[in-house]
């Protein structure tokens, strides 16, 4: 049995130690916002945060996450109806097309903004190694700038605080963020792909 702290909630899973974290998140815990893309840590669709750092969960053994804090797209925002500024920007800019890669994109972008609050285009290019077959890269860049501006302007102070602290109390009684309306492995679109519990929907 391996214990994880996923989106602030302690979880115990009975899996082989070398099981990729991705499959534990999706199949044991039902957090299907994190996607399987290439399975070789190349595309980034499976990106989640491990102790605040982005990792490709398809090639991250669950045993390495034992007792550690994992944040998925479902836990990125401050709670239902309180999306992370990146999720807000993603919708405002209408970044996704098919949406499949977007949760990984957002998780990678969130990690970038944690370290570099006002990234240049070059820094975004260096950080965002995720692959999008729809070619949304230009809008990804625009949305990251938008989110960075919002965070710097303090418009989303509370969300930022939540994002940076990553649930200071790791043992919360309930899973606060839910699955953002997504229940299956099929490609998500629009807001659901972003893990956002919102009435607004992006294209798709």
């Amino acid at each position: 049995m391996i214990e994880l702290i996923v989106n602030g909630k302690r979880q115990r899973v009975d899996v082989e130690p070398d099981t990729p974290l991705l499959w534990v998140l999706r199949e044991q815990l039902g957090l299907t916002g994190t996607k399987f893309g290439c399975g070789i840590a190349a595309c980034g669709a499976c990106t989640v945060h491990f102790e605040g750092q982005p990792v490709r969960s398809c090639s991250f053994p669950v045993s390495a996450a034992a007792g550690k804090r994992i944040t998925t797209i479902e836990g990125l925002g401050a709670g239902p109806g309180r999306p992370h500024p990146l999720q807000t920007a993603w919708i405002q800019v209408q970044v996704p097309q098919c949406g499949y890669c977007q949760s990984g994109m957002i998780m990678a972008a969130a990690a970038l903004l944690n370290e570099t609050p006002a990234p240049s285009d070059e820094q975004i290019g260096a950080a965002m190694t995720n692959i999008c077959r729809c070619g949304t890269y230009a809008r990804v860049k625009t949305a990251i700038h938008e989110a960075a501006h919002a965070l710097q302007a303090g418009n989303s102070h509370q969300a930022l605080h939540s994002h940076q602290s990553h649930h200071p109390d790791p043992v919360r009684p309930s899973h606060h963020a839910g699955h953002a309306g997504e229940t299956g492995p099929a490609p998500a679109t629009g807001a659901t792909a972003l893990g956002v519990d919102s009435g607004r929907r992006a294209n798709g």
Partner: protein
Amino acid sequence: MSRAASDAPRARSLSTHAPLSRFGVPLFFVLLVTLHLAANAWGAADELFAPIARVMTHPRCLNCHTSTDYPRQGDDRHRHLFLVVRGDDNRGAPGAHCGNCHGGANQSASGVPGAPGWRLAPLDMAWEGTPGVAMDNAGLCRRLLDRQRNGGRDSAALERHMTEEPLVAWAWAPGKDRLQEGRAPPPLSQADFIAAFRAWRAAGAPCPE
């Protein structure tokens, strides 16, 4: 002109160079022996360092001892996919650190290699003469011993690096790639490499010329 007259200058010449012929012959042999010893020393340096260089210039080592602002991959030493960059601390860019994909061990499911502290060697420790091309053995040896560029390591510290550093050890346990094909280790076994390194060091760590 008579024969006696024509021989006169030659006789004078021999007489003039008599001291040279007296000391020149032993001097010549001393020079010969010196050159021979030097050649042997250079030859020994060549011979001692060659197996070390074979390992150091293998893709498992050289791919992260690059002179570029990015790592390389594979036996063909292509640029790391996704335009991964070196970053200020040799561990990638903010948001795209080496450790985001490369964990503490090789991942059998994905084929992603891993070892503790996955990172590039600093540019000072590049073993490429020009991007993508390994230094020759002499340059490699000098670079290895240059304490201004090797992290201040003396030869004992270099030996520790070669024998104890997990990333170095990874070269002999590189795992399988995404196609489940084993990556090639360096041409010497780890034990043979360590033995070669110790022998080179015991000889005074001579560098080939």
